[in-house]
């Protein structure tokens, strides 16, 4: 079976004159229905990578295929963009209408979806992001987390197979961040939508099935969160972090405490510490 997304020897630079590649020889495949988090410091190339998924940027060399479509194929541009929706950092830049449900209807209207089906899709999309009760609200009166969920609903109404989110929670408070992460997880689990999420928050990356780490235009680590976050020194050397429980275990292990597996969450960390303390008695 062909993977849903594949980057084949992808290299990219903004102009010919630039001496350095922004992305250099990327080979990566992403399965249908997976949830991938992409990490990297500012300027590592992660947003550039994401923008190749719906042809906002085109490869300088190599190819990107999404659901069998070559992103360079202009004839298929509409099909491609209907399959891959993008959500960006600032919710205020993504909302076009003053009433919530009109905003969500914007994309299907442009796609020429029949009115009755637009109604259905909008209702479904608002339900999926738990914003049904706000459907007639003024979009500019919503909180940041709510606005971001409306932006996601707007993308959902196109019935995409994949949603790419570029730091979707960067401008939100902890409450808004939780709401948005919950929504993203549910869309992945319940609707089977493939998620590619760029984030600076390690606590969000651990929710993904797979973590890809970028540095200087290359993929330097790729694996499930336990695998990737076991490389504490390597992550720190490229300006990234690990979750606090992971760091604590790593430090204790370095001091000589007998710890085998990598932990990611507070629960796992408490469990390991509990067993260690019990073992002493």
């Amino acid at each position, binding site marked *: 079976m062909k993977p849903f997304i594949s980057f084949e020897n992808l290299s990219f630079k903004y102009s010919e004159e630039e001496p350095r590649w922004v992305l250099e020889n990327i080979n990566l495949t992403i399965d249908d229905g997976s949830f991938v988090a992409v990490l990297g*410091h*500012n300027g590592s190339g992660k947003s550039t990578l994401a923008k190749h998924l719906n042809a906002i940027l085109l490869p300088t060399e190599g190819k990107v295929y999404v659901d069998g479509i070559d992103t360079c194929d202009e004839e298929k541009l509409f099909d491609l963009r209907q399959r891959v929706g993008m959500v960006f950092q600032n919710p205020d830049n993504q909302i076009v209408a003053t009433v919530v449900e009109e905003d969500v209807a914007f994309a299907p209207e442009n796609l020429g979806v029949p009115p009755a089906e637009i109604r259905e899709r909008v209702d479904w999309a608002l339900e999926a992001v738990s914003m049904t009760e706000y459907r007639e609200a003024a979009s500019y009166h919503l909180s940041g987390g709510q606005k971001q969920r409306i932006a996601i609903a707007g993308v959902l109404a196109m019935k995409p197979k994949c949603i790419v989110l570029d730091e979707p929670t*960067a401008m939100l408070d*902890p409450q808004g961040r939780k709401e948005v992460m919950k929504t993203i997880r549910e869309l992945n689990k319940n609707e089977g939508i493939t998620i590619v999420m760029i984030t600076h928050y390690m606590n969000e990356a651990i929710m993904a099935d797979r973590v890809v780490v970028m540095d200087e235009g290359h993929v330097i680590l790729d694996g499930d969160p336990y695998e990737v976050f076991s490389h504490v020194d390597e992550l720190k050397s490229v300006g990234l972090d690990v*979750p*606090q429980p992971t760091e*604590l275990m790593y430090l204790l292990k370095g001091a000589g405490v007998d710890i085998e597996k990598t932990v990611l*969450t507070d629960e796992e*960390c*408490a469990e390991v510490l509990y067993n260690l303390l019990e073992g002493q008695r």
Partner: protein
Amino acid sequence: MKIEIQNLTHTYGAGTPFVKNALDDVSITIEDHDFIGLIGHTGSGKSTLVQHLNGILKPTSGRILIDGRDMWDKNTNIREVRFKIGLVFQYPEHQLFEETVYRDIAFGPTNMGLSEEEIRERVLSAMEFVGLEQDLLDKSPFDLSGGQKRRVAIAGVIAMRPEVLVLDEPTAGLDPKARDDLLKQIKKYYKENRSTVIIVSHSMEDMAKTVDKIIVVKGGKIERFLPVGEIFADAESLSSMSLDIPTITKVFKKLKDRGVDIETNVYTVKYAYELMRSRLLGEVRQDA
């Protein structure tokens, strides 16, 4: 510099159907050389509060005393106050406007009426402070990366050498290293200049390892004003205000809940490490 806020109320949209008290009878005293974190969720009034500190907003009622003098008294020169209390807004890179990095950073010091020489010295030292290379001096600020723009904007405030430095979510959108670097620099400014620093942030983990005291704002009122340790010791009430506690603090609460005899006011990884190392390996903690 001591800042006393007395019965401060700020009302937005007075006389319209959207009237709202963003701050409601707030009284608080910030002592000289305090290092404070200001937290609260979106809409709690924290940005409104910091915008009063250098006179961008005027109280609807109440007073703000700077070293005992009313900021809005007709004998106070509000311009002077603004030179002493520097405010870095949220996403300050959106406010860059000059043709070159040099001129953007020099804008504040120029308004202060300093000599050409002094301005130059301050611009260069502010650039060094935020970690900008000197070869960027004549570049347009709009050609820089996001992280560099943020640093130019912060340098513009640093160049005024404010006695009180107020930063509204300075690390939002930065990657982990840029975030840690910036927090370290802010800490350095605090120490070297004996200044007062107030940081607005959503990140409890950053606050826990940076500031000394925390103010929690909720619904336009001050809910808490306590040393960091005491704030996180009371995790339940923070959760009830839909605020987060550091993940590491949650670990120790979970241990306590399972019947382990252990302290729960653990809020940095460093402290957690020292505590657990001594428990597990029997080494004596240095601070014990």
